[in-house]
């Protein structure tokens, strides 16, 4: 899955026309997703569709449309001396995401490494191939946003196939970023008017951005040297070991395989999300648990995101969307933790 950036003139599209395109997407039997407060949801009716650049990221990211929270990987049927297996057909419907936050838009690019480094996960790849991301510039951030600290920004086009910048109430500047984006938009080129790059630039340059909270390379270094730091205990005591943070995260990707019988002889093998904060996540069959206490588990979470993934794939496993902190029941703030880790005066909590 390559995404070669191509240069293309900036276009302008009116709101009405954008909705017309969406209507067409739906009518062709494809899935259209837009962000809501809680989740990215499937749009059935475009008439009251509202693209809001100033909304906070939805509570849950859209990763479940490429990497579902639960999916069968095969079906089996037992008979007296035999087992019969049937593969799963992956749905190859196109999924168009309209108005993806720039922080979300890059998530598949980050995740794809994991699903392709030793074994190429056809479930992920097939869905990702059929995914069209139409990003939308972000004009609002809150205390939890930190995209700028992880190399992204509210105007980042990274990961989007097509990127929209609101010009006024009824018009968007449209940048076509990838081939896939071009291919998607070509049939609708009649709707597009040529735009003025300077006009959109003026807007993007003036967008308020969250301050850079930490230097990720310093964090990388600190993590390498402070595996046994007692500081982890602070957050360990506070964190309640749910996996809310991992499950809402656009790039967390752990999963668990389990077999489920659904009749006396038949069953399916399921792939389900898992989370490293669960106490049982690393519990061995022997009863031993290498990450037996929460501080070790939280340390793992931070290390995985800001060190191990960087080591392995050269990218930080974080988009800075702040979902995990915004939704944390006990308000554990990863930005605060990562920013404070280097400071000896501050505890991690």
């Amino acid at each position, binding site marked *: 899955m390559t995404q070669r950036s191509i240069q293309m003139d900036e276009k302008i599209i009116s709101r009405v026309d954008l909705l017309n395109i969406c209507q067409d997407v739906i009518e062709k039997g494809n899935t259209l997703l837009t962000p809501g407060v809680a989740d990215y949801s499937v749009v059935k009716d475009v008439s009251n569709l509202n693209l809001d650049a100033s909304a906070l990221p939805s509570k849950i990211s859209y990763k479940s449309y490429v990497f579902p929270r639960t999916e069968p990987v095969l079906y089996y049927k037992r008979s007296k*001396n035999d087992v019969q297996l049937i593969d799963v057909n992956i749905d190859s419907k196109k999924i168009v995401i309209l108005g993806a936050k720039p922080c979300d838009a890059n998530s598949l690019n980050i995740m794809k490494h994991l699903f392709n480094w030793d074994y190429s996960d056809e479930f992920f790849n097939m869905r990702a191939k059929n995914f069209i991301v139409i990003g939308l510039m972000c004009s609002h951030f809150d205390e939890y946003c930190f995209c700028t600290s992880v190399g992204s920004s509210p105007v980042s086009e990274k990961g989007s196939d097509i990127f929209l910048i609101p010009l006024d109430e009824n018009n968007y500047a449209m940048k076509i970023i990838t081939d896939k984006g071009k291919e998607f938009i070509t049939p609708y080129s009649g709707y597009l008017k040529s735009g003025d790059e300077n006009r959109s630039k003026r807007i993007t340059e003036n967008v308020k951005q969250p301050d850079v909270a930490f230097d990720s390379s310093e964090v990388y270094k600190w993590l390498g040297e402070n595996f046994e730091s007692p500081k982890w205990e602070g957050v360990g005591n506070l964190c309640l070991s749910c996996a809310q943070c991992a499950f809402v995260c656009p790039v967390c990707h752990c999963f668990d395989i389990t077999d489920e019988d659904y009749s006396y002889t038949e069953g399916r093998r399921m792939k389900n999300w898992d989370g490293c904060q669960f106490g049982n996540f690393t519990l061995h069959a022997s009863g031993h648990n290498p990450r037996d206490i929460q501080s070790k588990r939280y340390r793992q979470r931070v290390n995985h995101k800001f060190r191990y993934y960087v080591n392995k794939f050269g990218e930080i496993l974080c988009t800075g969307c702040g979902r995990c902190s915004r939704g944390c029941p006990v308000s554990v703030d990863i930005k605060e933790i990562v920013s404070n880790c280097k400071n000896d005066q501050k505890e991690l909590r």
Partner: protein
Amino acid sequence: MKIGVFICHCGENISSTVDCPRVADVCRTYTGVEYSVDYKYMCSDPGQNLIKDAIHKYNLDAIVVGSCSPHMHERTFRNAAVSAGINPFMVEIANLREHCSWVHDNIEAATRKAIELMRMAIEKVKRDKPLTKIKVPITKRVLVIGGGIAGIQAALDTANAGYEVVLVEKEPSIGGHMSQLSETFPTLDCSQCILTPRMVEVHQHPKIKLMTYSEVERVEGFIGNFKVTIKKKARHINEDKCSGCGMCITKCPIKKKAYNSFEEDLAFRPAVYVPFPQAIPNIPVIDETVCTYYKTGKCGMCVKVCDREAIDFGQKDTIHVADVGAIIVATGFKLYNIDKKSADSKYKGYGEYGYGKYRDVIDGLQFERIASASGPTSGEIKRPSDGRVPKKIAFIQCVGSRDDSKGISYCSKICCMYTAKQAMLYRHKVHDGEAYIFYMDIRAGGKMYEEFVRRAIEEDKVKYIRGRVSRIYEEDGKYIVKGEDTLAGMPVEIDADMVVLATAMIPQDGAESLARTIGIPYDKYGFFNEAHPKLRPVESTTAGVFLAGACQSPKDIPESVSMASAAASKAIILFANDTLEREPVVAKVNEDICAGCFYCMKVCPFGAVEVKDVKDINGIVYKEVAYINQGVCQGCGTCTATCLSKSIELAGFNNEEIFAEIAAL
């Protein structure tokens, strides 16, 4: 796993509606089934041999028999399996007869159901685990709590069977209420005369260790293996030295500071006393609360007169521990204290009868003492207030008993009889006296009982009035008893000289706390619960704890004695083996995941759940978990369903097995 399937035709009982060969054929297609066959009579010798041979020939690990109810032949097939070398708990029975062939007509439907029942049993047997019977060692010694007639009888019976007995009595002497009675119904023989020899027998029995003035403080352990802690209260008299001469009692200057509880407070006793002359053991007790020595540090008259130097003011309570295998509880009863002011807060008391206010309104036990030849009046019937001989006595039955509004609904059972007896005794002693008895019903079921009551009415001219008394009040030295004669439909008023109230029998003080100590259930009144009202009347629900006498419900003497003998024989039956074998269907806790909420402890009807400390490698306790005592658990499994984290499994019916059955539905 290799499973053998055996389908029984039961003659034609099963095969007339279930196509047995087809069931066997289908079962053969199931994973794990190595051998499947149908046969005319599986339970017959050839049938059992068929099973045994198949086990050997096909090397089977488990078998499923489709036959009659497991309540019929589960044991038969398990035994067959055992003799062929399979664990008996690797046998499952599918009930194809009672639950299938006999209750359905349609052959197709019945056959399909039979197949499904077999499938469920096969799935279950796949998850079955071999279980072994639980063996528990037995300490062959019995603890009897309570030294009344029931306790005495139980102790003697067990001891005569050759087992050691520890008999604990909280009063200074054994004998209980029976020693207080004057004569007994229906024979009117003297109570003391028949009881005293038995008391002496207890005292002299080499197998009985008598601990009077002692109380059970703690009971740990389980059937066959109880550890009992007994507190022996200080008598302040050295039991080894005391000869029972009674000089200390005679010389004690404190004569009138304490009521004599044996005389039901109708007389005084000195600070050093034996409850009654025939007391066993005949060793006095010094009452610290009234003795001058304990108040002022002076006196010591008893010390001076005791030539055995047995007085020991410094004596302290001592703690004794006994290992016993069974416990017989015989704590008996007391009378409902009807005095309104001091009535048990559970009950309302009878303020309207003036007990406690009028000295001549007395209860049944007080009358026993007045009528007793060894009592405070030497057997003459006199009024406690002025010593006059009462010319008219009103007896009132069912005071407290059968009266919902005062808190007790049960019948105290003995009052009809003893009231008749008391009225009779009164008429025998005061020939011109009139006896009136207010009653609700006369319940005289028992050998010679009805005849006895008739005798009171016909020969001794006791006047029975059927009705309740609403109020008793004093007028000019007489007690006006206002009541109703329901047979005549008229209100009646009797100006009696004395009133005797047949008050309800309620459990002895401290019965409930003792029950909690031992871990046996009791009803809302405090009477101990039997394991089964019909079939296990002398056993408590706690294995190894038996009940005797009025602690279980109101009883007269012969009933108490027979119950005591029954309890003793239950203990003796238990002791007949060296170890106790129990079905291995018991619950077990997974200590790794138990969260220690102890809901299991709350729901366990048998008190089988204990707290266990789990220690780490250094011996430091790192958590508390539930532990189920296998000797006590009866295998109901209520804990398994209550356990939120599913940390308890019931062997033989574990969750995996049940889920497998559900999956095969």
